[in-house]
């Protein structure tokens, strides 16, 4: 048993990877569904255990085949990626409970196992990107998760889902290839692929143009995956035409992992001094983040589709995260990390609400949501709870992250920035209110029949909506872990 305990880092990735082809053997939908949920809970258990092991600040280094760095590939787990691993596997576990949902319509009967298989591969890729300590591994795992997410997106009900998946494929592949070019240039200058080794050697060569170009390629590549404004074009279509369950999973995990990568590469590999003082990436990243906050929120206000509104809101929320990083202080990065966790909870909950709405009215047009407050009270209560979190009302997770972000901005004497963060929250009030107004104050045509979503959808929705209140009231756990993770990456490095 203690033997197994030692190999937890490898199992974190191997369990979902091995489970994906096993779905083909099980075939029966009920069986595969239960199996996928079981696997994702095993992953959750593993990442919880890993986080428990690194909470005291030590770093787990797992060498594959016993080959020490720089020869072998190692998995390296510190507080930052342990926390991201926990977020990703927790969200996966909760969302997988809901099953394929609307995706089922696009799947030929009896082929549901393919959906679960793709979902597990996507989870494998995301966990792999997060856990690995080898830069080329990052690229490979990123492509595993991306390829399976293109499949999942293409399962949407409308034919537009195909084009959404296709444009994401083109953008995503270009982004990943940019990352690959950047990694190649870094390898050229350092002769190693191991992150720790590379970070050390980069310090000696970071005056060269090659490293500068590498930084540019890496940042643009990751930003494409992260959907940093103005590289966000793929996101609204992908999230609004994908099946709602898939949007819930991707919105709360894929962009989060990309954000983690951005922190890892900028602060861990290239180093704070080089990225923020020599190159001064914050002069670009900060205005773009602020623009994302406003453009995303304003675009969200004008949407007529619930899922599309949520997608634009995601762009704004990603802006908050990158703003935290662009402050280049410990408090700013901690705010970004805690928002990563908090946004995963609330956006996951909102997309699951969209899944419930789709189940009931067959679509997510806001016009079709009239009177849903009476027709499906539990679902709409979840919408209100997580909507308040998106706004940042005290007592919700949104408040925790905005508080952290505003205090980080004030710590840097950036009063204007703090004001802009508040102002963009007001925009969130407008788009959340539009939903609440339609759901509670518009009278629907025809009879009002009270019929809520099935428990299979409602329970995951409420777990996430509840969590976005719970961690708003008792925020010490995510806040403390994020602060410690930021402190570790600032003081110890990598």
């Amino acid at each position: 048993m203690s033997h197994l305990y030692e190999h937890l880092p490898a199992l974190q990735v191997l369990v979902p990877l091995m489970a994906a082809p096993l779905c083909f053997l099980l075939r029966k939908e009920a069986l595969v569904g239960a199996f996928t949920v079981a696997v994702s809970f095993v992953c959750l258990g593993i990442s919880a255990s890993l986080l428990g092991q690194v909470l005291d600040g030590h770093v787990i280094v797992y060498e594959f085949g016993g080959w020490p760095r720089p020869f072998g590939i190692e998995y390296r787990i510190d507080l930052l990626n342990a926390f991201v691993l926990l977020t990703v596997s927790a969200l996966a576990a909760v969302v997988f409970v809901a099953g394929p949902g609307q995706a089922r319509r696009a799947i030929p009967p009896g082929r549901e196992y393919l959906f679960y298989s793709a979902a597990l591969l996507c989870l494998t890729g995301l966990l792999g990107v997060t856990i690995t300590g080898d830069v080329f591994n990052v690229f490979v795992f990123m492509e595993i998760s991306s390829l399976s997410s293109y499949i999942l997106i293409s399962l949407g009900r409308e034919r537009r889902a195909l084009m959404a998946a296709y444009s994401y494929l083109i953008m995503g592949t270009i982004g990943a290839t940019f990352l690959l070019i950047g990694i190649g240039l870094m390898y050229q200058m350092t002769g190693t692929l191991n992150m720790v080794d590379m970070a050390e050697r980069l310090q000696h060569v970071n005056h060269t143009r090659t490293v500068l170009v590498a930084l540019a390629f890496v940042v643009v590549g990751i930003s494409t995956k992260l959907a940093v404004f103005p590289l966000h074009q793929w996101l609204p279509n992908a999230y609004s035409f994908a099946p709602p369950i898939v949007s819930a999973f991707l919105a709360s995990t894929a962009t989060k992992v990309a954000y983690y990568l951005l922190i890892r590469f900028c602060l861990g590999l290239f180093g704070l001094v080089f990225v923020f003082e020599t190159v001064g990436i914050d002069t670009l990243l900060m205005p773009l983040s602020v623009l994302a906050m406003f453009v995303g929120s304003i675009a969200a206000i004008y949407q007529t589709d619930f899922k599309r509104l949520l997608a634009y809101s995601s762009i704004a929320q990603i802006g908050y995260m990158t703003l935290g990083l662009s402050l280049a202080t410990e408090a700013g990065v901690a705010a970004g990390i805690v928002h990563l966790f908090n946004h995963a909870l609330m956006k996951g909950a909102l997309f699951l609400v969209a899944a419930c709405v789709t189940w009931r009215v067959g679509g997510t047009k806001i016009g079709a949501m009239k009177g849903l407050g009476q027709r499906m009270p539990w679902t709409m209560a979840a919408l209100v709870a997580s909507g308040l979190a998106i706004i940042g009302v005290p007592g919700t997770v949104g408040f925790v992250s905005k508080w952290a972000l505003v205090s980080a901005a004030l710590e840097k004497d950036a009063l204007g920035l703090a004001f802009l963060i508040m102002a963009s929250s007001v925009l969130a009030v407008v788009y959340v209110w539009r939903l609440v107004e339609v759901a509670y104050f518009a009278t629907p045509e025809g009879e009002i029949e009270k019929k809520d979503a099935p428990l299979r959808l409602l329970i995951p929705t409420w777990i996430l909506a509840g969590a976005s209140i719970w961690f708003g009231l008792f925020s010490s756990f995510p806040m403390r872990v994020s602060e410690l993770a930021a402190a570790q990456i600032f003081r110890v490095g990598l």
Partner: protein
Amino acid sequence: MTIERLVDHLATHWNYLAVIVLMMSGLYIAISRGNLVKKIMGMNVFQASVILMYVSMGKIHGGTAPILVEGVPDVVYTNPVPHVLMLTAIVVGVASTALGLALVVRTKEAYGTVEEDEIVALDRADDEREMATERAERRAAGAGA
């Protein structure tokens, strides 16, 4: 940098010149073409340029295959790691091409075309039809009341 030095630079680093030309033309095709299949081909050219970049960076002048031969001490080896990495990158490229083409086939089935502008026009027509029916319904509801 004088012209002579530039020419000299290009003559000795022509592999990187090839990488840059391939990279930019691939990226341009992937962005500018309206045909979905051509976009994927552009993406392929783009990926191929990266493969060339990695492979040429591993090569050392006069370097041989990294095989240890007894009795021959001072041999310069070519670095095999970038070549091995590219095996993986080729697999990834093939997978994304296959998936992209599969999506194009499905798009052709659903829309009857693989031209992006025609697909956008079809989507727009769908939107307008939907809005028209919505308006008609609202008018009918208004008349009923």
